[in-house]
């Protein structure tokens, strides 16, 4: 009996020592607050909360999108609560179509003081803009019908589609400027969605 009690005491000592060693080291966490997204970048997306935005399909149908836009704060914790955390702003715009098509999502986030990241997603296509403080993007002139647009970003799509099997009908390219927003989304079968003035605003 005495041996059994001794055995349990030794077991308890081992268990307690494991418990103490299992404790994580003291955290040295610091919250790094990134400065807000400047207005100069927010103004690159000319959509306002509650606004109607219209695109015309190449076969003639005008598609009306309802815009919702807001800025909120997000946190990124790189080391499971034990390292530096970053607090940064995200400005999100969602264009919800009044047509059976997917939403268009636009997100501006400033997760670093060096650069600002902007992404536009539509139907599996992704367009990534990166703005550095001292770097000016090369912008082009672009004509759609009779209209000439200046300061246009022309971009090819990346794909974020995680399906095992991808569709072959994909978003090919985007033309965008700060005055009108989306000027053209081009599909790889030649169909386009072009900027249009809404009939019923």
């Amino acid at each position: 009996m005495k041996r059994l009690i001794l055995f349990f005491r030794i077991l308890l000592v081992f268990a307690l020592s494991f418990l103490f060693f299992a404790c994580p080291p003291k955290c040295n966490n610091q919250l790094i607050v990134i400065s807000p997204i400047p207005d100069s970048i927010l103004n690159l997306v000319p959509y306002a909360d509650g606004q109607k935005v219209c695109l015309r399909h190449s076969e003639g149908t005008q598609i009306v999108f309802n815009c919702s836009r807001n800025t909120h704060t997000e946190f990124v914790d790189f080391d499971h609560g034990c390292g530096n955390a970053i607090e940064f702003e995200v400005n999100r715009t969602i264009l919800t179509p009044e047509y059976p098509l997917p939403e268009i999502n636009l997100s501006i986030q400033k997760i670093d003081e060096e650069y600002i990241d902007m992404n536009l997603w539509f139907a599996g296509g992704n367009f990534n803009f990166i703005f550095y403080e001292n770097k000016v993007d090369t912008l082009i002139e672009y004509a759609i019908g009779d209209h000439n647009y200046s300061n246009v970003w022309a971009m090819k799509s990346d794909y974020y589609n995680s399906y095992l099997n991808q569709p072959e009908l994909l978003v090919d390219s985007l033309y965008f400027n700060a005055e009108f927003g989306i000027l053209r989304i081009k599909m790889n079968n030649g169909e386009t969605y072009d900027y249009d003035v809404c009939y019923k605003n």
Partner: protein
Amino acid sequence: MTFATKINSSILLIFLVVLFSSCAEDQALKKVNYHLSDTISQWLVSDSVFMRFEMTDNNGINREYFMHANEHDETLGSSYFMGIKTQVSFTEYYFQRFRSNYSDEFSISLYPSYNDDVYGEQIHFSLNDLSFHYDNHLNIITNIYMGSHYLNLRITSEGVEDDSLISSSLCFPGSFSINGKEYSKLFHFKLNDLKEYWDDYTITDIYYAQGVGLLRYDMNNGLIFTRK
């Protein structure tokens, strides 16, 4: 050893055999296999993952559907009595799912009959927010789901309790023509239920051909999507 002891030993032995055999996942006193008939299996799209097709709406906007899952397997079911596994069942099923580049999704699943006297083989069909179950023996739609709203028929050994609950229909037109192509073995589903929850994008009609898949669907706002 007396006769009574022999009997007790035999009972114990039988009990132990039953107990051990019930531990194995697919072992029991009785095994049942539920298989699908060749007739119902013809509703599957006769192609493999990576097959794709395009549909266009009446405004000329195209979307591409591609097969995302194509499964043929069996599920294992068990029945117990006083802790003893008395029956295991192997139920064959087929499942095919398609997605579109514009985030639409449709699927078809086929299930065998569990009780030939009451239920028949089942087609479970789903397109975006709309799903229905069709019983091939009773020749009726037994379940309708529209988002979070649904209607389920109650079926017992006495039959269908309230067969007027669901008024949506599934019929089999002799033939159907789209873009110059003639399809002869198809179903036409027409939604007539849950009208209080319909919106512009509610799918009201579906045409689906054996071996081919989705041919056409209509929305409540007049949009019609047809296979190219």
